[in-house]
């Protein structure tokens, strides 16, 4: 289609009609919940996270009411424990992290001029998992069964079933389930940023929000899996008595602290960076100029991401580790100040160099920076080991973390709320209410949390349910309580403002006169994302590319039509965003919801020790996943289609060009990280024990681990050979190789189990047999999944859905096998060979 064709208004109307039909949301009170479009899932996700935040906020108000006066008896100590545990856990796992994912699901496709993210059904699956897990965890407080061990759940308090009831299991399993949805979101967002940018949007033109999201999503891949590994060990101890954290049987409670904080500290930056990313979008708009120091912001994001993984032990300064170890982490904690400071200075410089419009969103942004800087400064204080010993586990730390999180996450999100509400709803929020609420929030936050520095330094420990009057803390505590209720009142005003929105008239398009792509959205809200996918030449195309909006709206760029009645978007190359292929997106479906429910069943039923039902739910989950997969990687009706401007793009790509391959790669990176957490556990035990395996205990020997390794290498080699023979057209040979690979993988399972089984290793006796069994179980379970993959590729080939030229399935299965080979090498070498040499 030439440029001139788009001059015809009739053609344009016909194209719009086709696009509208293709992207029409499902109708009906039930079917509408099968929607997978980011325009629907994003707002559901955001509202759910917002409601969970309000719930957790109410818990905080009860906490503050209890602490308002000395020796209060509003709630019992037991209820108080549940309140603060659930408040912290919900704010972290059910609000801060999911909120960033939710906001990104709304914003990212718009920012990238894409019609949707690459895996809309995965977003929907993530949302339903989050909803089910969130309701399960939060609902527990109504049954007096909420977790009560603090949000970081330190053993042995929480692993001993006589000290901690069902709540600990609800925390572990409910939140593990939600971590799965976070990893799913990370896959979605990374592939979205890397492969779904509009043509011409090279890495140096990418909106900074996308840079931040890319960095944060990668952080999730390395931060969340260690916690998943920790959860696994934790539940093995609670449910089966495997003593990973029980010092009496060779375990070590510090292992949990390591695994938790390897997750926990990067997590602070996982929730801070996306909020700062909102500043990077709104500050240029209200300074009416380009953001200064683009590469410096990228440095800040990437640098913070790396350094944040070197901070975890600063939560463990008081555990008696050697000073030399503490000093390393203290040094890294000081170093992270540099990138954090750089980005704040870049924002200030942009405002100083621009003509500032002091709008409501900018008010929130500047106010939150002020609060954040105070939290940052106390952070530098507690990063110094001797100071931390004084302040550890006091209200000083409570003050520090709330300043950081309110200034670094919550208030920036309110800034984003006021900035982006017109984008999502087409309507503006009230400036008057917004500004009033801001000042109430600002005063409330400082009144609530500043006195806590003092009460902490005066010796008030965190997590006490009451305190004696003689300590002289009542004035400070009363101030904190008044501040907390004031803050809550500010939030209430914002909620009222939001609730009034449906009765307000539609506002103008791009009301803030912003320069970035997301503001192409129209107030009336078309479901197709963008009318045509633009060619990007600058960082602020709406400002700098002549006639940009009109050209997009008249379909003068790419993919202005949906001739075949399919939902489509573009895949481009990673560095320079050169068009690579047309991506066909899935339609609404109940499968993601059903899969989330089935997987939720696995976690929830396990909590109540209903193992057979949990197993049934697991089988159902597998079946649903396979049914879901079966519809992917379809062979198109024609090899190529034109996208406009004389460019023809393929409709099918495989290997590293395809989003599916990247999704497998990213998922397996997360999987490998979780596995590293378990391996860390093994070597951690080795360092803390004089001899490991302990005296009088034999390991699984060399023979069976080596047999298992050989079989898994065979399975890998057969899959690799199948991929190559298939590519050369020898389909029958490829099928035979896949079957042989599956047989080898299947045989590896009993061979792997034979080692610990035949040497009578009892996992309840000591941490050594327990970790051996865990690594063995992990590896043979992965071998089992490998077999399912090989059989799946075989079935696809037999069904004619995969051919020598359409080989995405077998390529992805081979990629899985590469990771499996790595897992096998590490596990069997650790279990079989390491005891021989150590």
């Amino acid at each position, binding site marked *: 289609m030439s440029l001139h064709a788009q001059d015809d208004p009739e053609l344009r109307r016909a194209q719009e009609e086709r696009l509208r039909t293709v992207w029409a949301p499902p109708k009906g009170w039930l079917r509408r919940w099968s929607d997978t479009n980011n325009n629907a899932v994003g707002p559901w996700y955001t509202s759910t996270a917002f409601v969970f935040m309000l719930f957790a906020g109410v818990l905080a108000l009860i906490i503050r009411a209890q602490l308002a006066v000395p020796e209060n008896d509003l709630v019992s100590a037991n209820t108080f424990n549940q309140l603060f545990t659930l408040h912290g856990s919900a704010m972290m796992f059910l609000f801060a992290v999911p909120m960033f994912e939710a906001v990104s699901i709304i914003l990212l496709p718009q920012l990238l001029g894409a019609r949707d993210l690459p895996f809309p059904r995965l977003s929907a699956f993530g949302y339903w998992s989050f909803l089910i897990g969130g309701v399960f965890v939060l609902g527990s407080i109504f049954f007096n069964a909420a977790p009560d061990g603090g949000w970081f759940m330190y053993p042995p308090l929480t692993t001993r079933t006589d000290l901690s009831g069902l709540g600990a299991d609800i925390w572990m399993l409910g939140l593990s389930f939600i971590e799965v949805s976070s990893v799913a979101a990370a896959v979605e967002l990374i592939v979205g940023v890397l492969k779904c940018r509009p043509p011409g949007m090279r890495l140096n033109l990418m909106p900074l929000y996308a840079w931040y999201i890319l960095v944060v999503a990668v952080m999730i891949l390395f931060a969340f899996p260690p916690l998943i590994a920790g959860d696994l060990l934790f539940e093995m101890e609670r449910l089966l008595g495997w003593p990973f954290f029980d010092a009496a049987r060779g375990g070590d409670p510090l292992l949990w602290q390591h695994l938790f904080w390897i997750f926990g500290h990067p997590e602070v930056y996982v929730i801070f960076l996306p909020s700062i990313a909102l500043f990077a979008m709104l500050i240029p708009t209200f300074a009416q100029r380009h953001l200064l120091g683009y590469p410096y912001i990228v440095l800040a994001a990437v640098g913070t991401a790396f350094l944040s993984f070197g901070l975890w032990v600063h939560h463990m300064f008081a555990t008696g580790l050697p000073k030399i170890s503490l000093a*390393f982490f203290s040094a890294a904690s000081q170093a992270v100040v540099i990138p954090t400071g750089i980005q704040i200075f870049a924002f200030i410089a942009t405002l100083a160099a621009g003509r500032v419009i002091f709008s409501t969103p900018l008010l929130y942004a500047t106010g939150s920076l002020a609060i954040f800087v105070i939290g940052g400064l106390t952070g530098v204080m507690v990063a110094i080991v001797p100071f931390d010993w004084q302040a550890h586990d006091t209200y000083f730390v409570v003050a520090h973390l709330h300043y950081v999180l309110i200034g670094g996450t919550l208030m920036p999100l309110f800034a984003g709320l006021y900035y982006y509400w017109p984008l999502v709803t087409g309507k503006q929020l009230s400036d008057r209410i917004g500004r009033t609420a801001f000042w109430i929030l600002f005063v409330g936050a400082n009144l609530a949390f500043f006195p806590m520095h003092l009460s902490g330094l005066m010796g008030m420990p965190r997590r006490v349910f009451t305190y004696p009057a003689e300590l002289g803390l009542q004035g400070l505590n009363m101030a904190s309580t008044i501040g907390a209720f004031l803050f809550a009142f500010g939030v209430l005003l914002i909620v009222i403002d939001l609730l009034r929105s449906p009765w307000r008239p539609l506002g103008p398009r791009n009301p803030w006169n912003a320069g970035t792509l997301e503001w192409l959205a129209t107030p009336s809200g078309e479901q197709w994302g963008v009318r045509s996918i633009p060619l990007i030449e600058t960082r602020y195309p709406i400002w700098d590319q002549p006639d940009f909006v009109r050209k997009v709206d008249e379909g003068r760029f790419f993919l202005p039509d949906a001739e075949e009645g399919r939902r489509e978007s573009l895949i481009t190359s990673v560095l320079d965003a050169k068009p690579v292929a047309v991506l066909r997106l899935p339609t609404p479906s109940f499968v993601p919801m059903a899969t989330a429910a089935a997987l939720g069943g696995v976690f929830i039923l396990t909590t109540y020790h209903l193992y057979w039902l949990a197993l049934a739910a697991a089988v159902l989950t597998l079946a649903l996943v396979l049914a879901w997969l079966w519809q992917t990687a379809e062979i198109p009706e024609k090899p190529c289609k034109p996208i406009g401007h004389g460019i023809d793009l393929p409709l099918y790509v495989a290997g590293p060009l395809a989003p599916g391959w990247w999704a497998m790669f990213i998922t397996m990176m997360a999987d490998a990280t979780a596995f590293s957490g378990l391996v860390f556990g093994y070597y951690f035990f080795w360092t803390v024990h004089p001899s490991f395996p302990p005296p009088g205990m034999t390991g699984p020997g060399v023979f069976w681990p080596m047999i298992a390794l050989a079989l898994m290498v065979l399975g890998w080699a057969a899959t690799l050979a199948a991929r190559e023979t298939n590519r050369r057209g020898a389909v029958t040979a490829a099928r035979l190789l896949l079957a042989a690979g599956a047989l080898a993988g299947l045989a590896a399972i009993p061979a792997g189990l034979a080692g610990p089984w035949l040497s009578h290793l009892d996992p309840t006796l000591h941490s050594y047999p327990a970790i051996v069994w865990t690594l063995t179980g992990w590896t043979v379970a992965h071998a089992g999944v490998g077999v399912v993959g090989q059989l799946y590729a075989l079935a696809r080939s037999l069904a004619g859905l995969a051919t020598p030229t359409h080989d995405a399935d077998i390529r992805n299965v081979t990629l899985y096998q590469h990771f499996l080979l790595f897992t096998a090498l590490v596990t069997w070498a650790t279990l079989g060979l390491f005891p021989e040499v150590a």
Partner: protein
Amino acid sequence: MIGRLHQRFRALRVTLWTLIVPPTGWAAHFLFSYLWAAVRCAKTGRYVDAPAIFWGGTAAALLVILASGWIAWVQARTPGDHPPHEAGTDSDRLRFLAYATLLLAGLSVIGVVFTALPVLFLRDCR
């Protein structure tokens, strides 16, 4: 000779992977330091006066970071389009990635030096 070296540097490919070489150098050094101290203190219970392994590892990490910083510095000066170097061209994309790599190299050098300092001052495993 330096001139020819610089020409070689400019011909090197710049990707997202090369961007993270300097901070990965920091991360590897940090992990090495932590494991070195933890294993040494837990397994032998005593410290050494001249930890040659540690300083060797630190020198290696600094070498990698400085080398990638140098390459990035040369690449960030690739002649091409006009300032402010934010256009959608090959040379501006290269300059951006190279400059960001250079900045990360600077941060990583600071990070490695910070991490190494305690070994200079602390002398035991307490």
